């Protein structure tokens, strides 16, 4: 090689591209073996029997009364839930953000409590109040001794729990919609002769309509895939997701499990298409350049005003009583817990000491923290690199498809992906370098990671869009290499978003039950599994005490995470990094903008 060729080779930076090519190979392997192949295998498992195409699974499913009932129950739950969640959700948002209700700030705290009081914690809390040994049940039994102590079960119980759990989305999205209303439009309507009801019906609701439609779809989706609530309070009322779990555990019924998960996946895809179309129609948020904030409307009719106040506070109590009781009883000794008596006499910190000192109780907490924390960090790091690749090759079809393939976990229910992994890798596979996932400790964090990818990619991509590309150019022209530019300029700018995503992902999967139920390692049960087992041990006061402490710890961790991401914590971080005032602001992921994401966690399970 002559010197000019050597110079050309050096100038062309071929060597520096080796990490890039290795990363591309890794992405290809990940997509193929963990996102595509497992789901294809689910289809093969159903439709390819004894080496030929078969529809026998449909036949078997149609002959299974239990399966048909579960499918019908799921659609019934989804349909009714859509109505109840939207009535309650819209009411609480209007009561706290639109109407002038006394104590609105306090009410808002109660209604937003499901942000931290969610998932298995919420289910356990409701059981603690309304369940067989619940505080309310015990009180009622004193008044009505002949009452069935197991009254809180079946469809009404599932609907009740899920209705209040699912309004979190309203407090995030619809609340934002109401705050985005232009007060001038309300004043204009009044000026033209509209009364309060007409303003609400003709101005406010039509403006919020696209958001409400999205919330309707989201409620339907959550109802259809419900897992924890039917498992814990459903009793005879069985839905699709728990049945998939049940069938998966029996090899002979695995094809039925696969078929049910396909039904769930198909419904999810249809709902996503409807939601995306709805979003594409745009919204009716104010087009005014001098928008004014909504001034809270005082309800003019005194009777109606009284009724709305009473309803708001009744709902406030429904939301807050389980949470408060869980917190308070976590500080009561076993006697206090068993007798449902709150007294300073029974106050103790032993329950907390027991969790921290007893390995069998501390274990699930640690396992969940390591699993969800590890998966959250890896998912964010991985998607930062993938998003960078996608953004740098915007016009490249391969890059475009790579991005789409990472959204697969959005299209399909987590249960189907879990099932796919089980079917594909129940024995050592070359694609996993001779490993099998079934029975391994890392299958659960792996599927957490897979499920975290779509929303993480979307938010990171959003952050890249907010990034001033001139910063990268400036760094390069000052002599910095691509990698150094990435580490010193791009990464620090993405850091607030990345940290926020780690926190959110960690939070979403900390008390996961759905996926854990499928894939947990018997030696390392997760929090979700532990809470479920403890809840099943109905007469075991120790188990109840452990669950109470677990719940408080999870709520505490969630609250801290929300503080870091959206509270003062994030503002302090922004101030320190100086990003806030810069022209291109990269913020923590704004939940409100994620309305189209199905990445919103299932509030009744903690999973997705």
């Amino acid at each position, binding site marked *: 090689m002559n010197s000019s060729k050597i110079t050309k080779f050096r*100038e062309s930076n071929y060597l520096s591209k080796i990490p890039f090519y290795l990363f591309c190979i890794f992405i290809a392997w990940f997509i193929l073996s963990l996102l595509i192949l497992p789901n294809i295998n689910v289809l093969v498992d159903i439709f390819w029997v004894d080496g030929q195409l078969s529809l026998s699974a449909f036949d078997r499913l149609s002959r299974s009364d239990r399966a048909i009932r579960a499918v019908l129950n799921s659609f019934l739950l989804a349909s009714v839930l859509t109505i109840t969640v939207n009535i309650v959700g819209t009411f609480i948002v209007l009561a706290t953000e639109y109407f002038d209700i006394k104590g609105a700030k306090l009410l808002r705290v109660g209604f937003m409590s499901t942000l931290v009081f969610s998932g298995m914690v919420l289910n356990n809390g409701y059981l603690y109040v309304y369940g067989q040994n619940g505080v309310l049940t015990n009180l009622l039994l004193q008044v009505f001794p002949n009452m069935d102590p197991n009254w809180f079960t079946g469809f009404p119980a599932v609907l009740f729990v899920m209705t209040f759990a699912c309004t979190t989305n309203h407090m995030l999205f619809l609340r934002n919609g109401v705050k985005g209303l232009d007060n001038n439009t309300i004043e204009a309507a009044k000026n033209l002769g509209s009364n309060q009801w007409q303003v609400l019906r003709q101005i406010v609701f039509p403006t919020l309509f696209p958001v409400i439609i999205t919330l309707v779809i989201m409620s339907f989706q959550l109802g259809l895939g419900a897992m924890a609530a039917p498992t814990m309070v459903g009793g005879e009322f069985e839905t699709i997701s728990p049945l998939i779990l049940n069938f998966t555990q029996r090899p002979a019924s695995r094809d039925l499990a696969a078929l049910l998960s396909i039904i769930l996946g198909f419904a999810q895809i249809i709902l996503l298409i409807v939601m995306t179309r709805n979003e594409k129609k745009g919204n009716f948020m104010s087009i005014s350049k001098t928008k004014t904030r909504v001034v809270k409307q005082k309800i003019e009719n005194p009777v109606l005003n009284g009724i709305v106040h009473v309803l708001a506070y009744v709902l406030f109590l429904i939301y807050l009583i389980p949470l408060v009781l869980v917190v308070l009883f976590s500080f009561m000794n076993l006697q206090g817990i068993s007798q449902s008596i709150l007294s300073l006499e029974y106050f103790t910190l032993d329950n907390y000491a027991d969790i921290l000192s007893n390995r069998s109780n501390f274990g699930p907490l640690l396992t969940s923290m390591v699993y969800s924390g590890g998966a959250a960090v890896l998912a964010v790091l991985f998607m930062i690199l993938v998003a960078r690749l996608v953004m740098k090759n915007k016009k490249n079809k391969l890059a475009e498809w790579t991005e789409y393939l990472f959204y697969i976990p959005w299209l399909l229910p987590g249960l189907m992906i879990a099932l796919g992994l089980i079917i594909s890798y129940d024995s050592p596979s070359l694609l996993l370098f001779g490993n099998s996932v079934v029975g391994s400790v890392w299958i659960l964090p792996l599927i957490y990671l897979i499920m975290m990818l779509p929303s993480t990619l979307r938010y990171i991509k959003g952050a890249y869009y907010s990034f001033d590309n001139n*910063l990268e150019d400036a760094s*390069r022209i000052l*002599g*910095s290499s691509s990698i150094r530019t990435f580490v010193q300029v791009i990464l*620090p700018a993405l850091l607030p978003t990345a940290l926020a995503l780690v926190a959110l992902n960690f939070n979403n999967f900390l008390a996961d039950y759905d996926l854990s139920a499928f894939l947990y390692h018997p030696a390392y049960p997760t929090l979700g599994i532990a809470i479920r087992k403890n809840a099943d041990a109905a007469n075991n006061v120790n188990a109840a005490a452990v669950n109470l402490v677990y719940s408080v710890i999870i709520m505490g961790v969630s609250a801290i995470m929300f503080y870091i991401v959206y509270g003062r914590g994030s503002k302090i971080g922004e101030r320190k*990094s*100086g990003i806030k005032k810069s022209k291109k602001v990269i913020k923590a992921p704004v939940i409100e903008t994620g309305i189209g994401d199905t990445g919103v966690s299932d509030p009744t399970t903690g999973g997705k």
Partner: protein
Amino acid sequence: MIEIRDLQIKYDDFIAINDVNFEIKEGEFFTLLGPSGCGKTTTLRSIAGFLKPSKGSINVNGKNIINIPVEKRELGMIFQSYALFPTMSVYDNIAYGLKIEKRSKSQIQERVLELADLVELNEEQLQKNVSDLSGGQQQRVAIARALAKKPNIVLFDEPLSNLDAKLRKQLRLELKRIQRETGMTAIYVTHDQDEALEISDHIAVFNDGKIEQIGTPREIYDHSATEFVCNFIGEANSIGSDLIQYINDHTDKNRFNPEAKHYIREEKIKLWVPSNSQAVPINATVVDGVFYGTFSTYICKALDTTLRIIVKEDGNTTIDSKKELTIYIDPKDILEYGG
């Protein structure tokens, strides 16, 4: 010396710039001027190395740099948005390039302070976060950062466009001063003709992906090569065919082609008999007048042409609307295109 030869840049099928040729001497302040979307920034970014030309060469001191990666071109650049790193202090922003060169701490500190002095930033400001500075101060940081490694060539991508008019004027002069003091070669992109005329040694006027004219500010202004340049630089009156015929009749016959387009700069039309006796007197009527303090403008109608005339104010002249007067046009000031 920088030589751009037959430069072409394509975005898919769209040709952003084509057949661009120019040379820049060492230590020169060279401006790429033109309206939005004309290809001036594209040309600058290809020199920087952010865009790879589909054709042509960019030679710096005789070496074609097209295949040299951005970070190895050793150019300075100042961006329209300043592109200051928001996660770093002012000091760290200026020191960034020096740290990449692995200079010692003391060398870095010495250079940063030297630059701070050059761009008039004080030590307190150096410790601040860049977002705590005003627009003008951020611009100074961007200049200091670009100059830190003592590049021979500095690229400016509309660096003053985000500033208010007064600050823009002030910083223009400072840029020119810094360029003179450092002896760097500056390639400056702007759409502001006043800015280009004020600070440039040479200007290349871009239109629709091509260069229309290259010259000194005076050449570009007084002898605009094309109708586009004439209209883009300064203000010019379009002269109607009747008026051209009138001027033809009163000077050498057929000096101007009646089929061509003709223009005259506003300030070239006189209200008094100029010392140059070649000027043609023309009867006109004042339609309107606006007083601007140091000068006034008058809209006059002469035959088929409406002319805007600039008159320096001496405080004694007042011209009323509808007043009939004689204006003087020197044929050598008329610019002719096409025909």
